[in-house]
């Protein structure tokens, strides 16, 4: 391998700028001088061949970057949003918020058993979830609910259309209270009773 090729490979695949002596570690055949001469030759080749990229020298070392005059193409290219999908944690969090809204972050975390502020933020950024109010009481925590975009995306007329079949855990089906001292309701009658207490406002 020629030094230029090794240097090019390293600069190409590195995710941070590298100083000449760092690049030299790639191979015994390299030292700082050899690397710097190789970079100069690469610079020359790129210019001569009218490549769209160049070796840029930044504070921390060398880096391959597209030349500034291509920025406009890349920006345009980027404005086409690429379709994406929700991760497993996001799906779970969205399901909990959809079924138990309005719901605070701490309750989501209690049900999931893991910290969830990042996931909730993502769902907010995606416009699927929004702050719908504040709970009474200490610290008046924010309450989250689903957005009209949520209904639209999943093709529901209203939240009443969310399927509430027996397959669902009572946590989602019935908004059973989650206190530590109360057992999760097993008996349907008891569930009924518990529900009486939670007169949460209709989230619509």
């Amino acid at each position, binding site marked *: 391998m020629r030094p230029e090729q090794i240097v090019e490979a390293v600069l*190409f695949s590195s*995710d941070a700028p590298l100083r000449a002596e760092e690049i030299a570690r790639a191979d015994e055949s390299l030292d700082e001088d050899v690397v710097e001469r190789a970079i100069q030759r690469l610079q020359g080749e790129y210019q001569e061949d009218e490549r769209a990229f160049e070796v840029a020298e930044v504070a921390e070392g060398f880096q391959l970057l597209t030349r500034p005059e291509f920025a406009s193409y890349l920006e345009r290219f980027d404005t086409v949003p690429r379709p994406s999908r929700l991760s497993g944690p996001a799906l779970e969090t*969205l399901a909990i918020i959809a079924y138990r809204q309005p719901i605070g972050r*701490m309750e989501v975390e209690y049900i999931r*058993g893991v910290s969830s502020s990042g996931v909730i933020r993502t769902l907010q*950024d995606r416009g699927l979830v929004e702050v719908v109010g504040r709970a009474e009481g200490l610290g008046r925590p924010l309450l989250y609910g689903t957005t009209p975009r949520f209904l639209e995306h999943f093709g529901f007329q209203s939240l009443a259309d969310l399927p509430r079949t027996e397959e669902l855990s009572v946590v989602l089906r019935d908004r059973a209270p*989650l206190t530590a001292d109360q057992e999760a309701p097993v008996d349907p009658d008891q569930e009924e009773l518990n529900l009486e207490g*939670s007169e949460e406002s209709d989230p619509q």
Partner: protein
Amino acid sequence: MRAPPGRSGALLPSAVAGPGRFVVDLDRFQGPMDLLLHLIREQDIDIFDIPIARITDQFLAAIQEIHPEELDSAGEFLEMAATLVRIKAQMLLPRPPDEEEEDPRAELVRRLLEYEQIREISQRLEAAESQRARRFPKGYVPPRPKPPLEESPLETTWEEVYEAALGVEVPDPKAREHQVTRRGVAMEEKVELILKMLPERGRVEFSELLRPWKEKLHGVMTFLAGLELARRRTLRLRQVQPFSELWLYWRGEGGAGSTGDEAQDRAAMPEEEGDR
């Protein structure tokens, strides 16, 4: 750390600990199919004519090694053991004279071959993966303005959300308790702490409240608790000058007792149902 599939034949010297008895390290198997295939391939058995009694015995012997705490995966091994025992019993029954009757082992053979094929494919995939890993993509891609997430089309379907919903279970309060207290309820704890110390002492230094803890979060939560109690007129915050010590002064009465109870109630559970 990763166990390449299909290594069982090569990597597992199945030491014979007694006549016909195999000692098998179950951790090395991905499941009952893997183990069964190993037993068959190791002994050069014709897969289309499995000596079912012998294999069943060896399989049962192998799974006796399963630790009780691994009961989760044990269930899968036991299920296979049950299948083997059932086939063994069927083999003992006199075959009906009409030859149309299927060999009791047929379905098992089909499954084993299918599994073996999948294992071979996953070896091929692994080879392709390591080939691909020799080629590196562009390392640094300059950040450019990203369109807002909200505008990017979402491919997630309701089926996926619902599937996630089906996975949600009633949380076990015992399992959750310590996590919840450690994380979010810290502020309620701080309220309790303040209400415990303040009435009898009249005033207390903020730094004293923090003394037992090092993490920043305790400071934040204690401060928030102080603000909340000040808002409720339970106490007064006083600081002589910026960056000097912060003092908390008891304002007397002010429903301290009831607040305390309330805080205690809430500490047991997350916010949402707090106002029932």
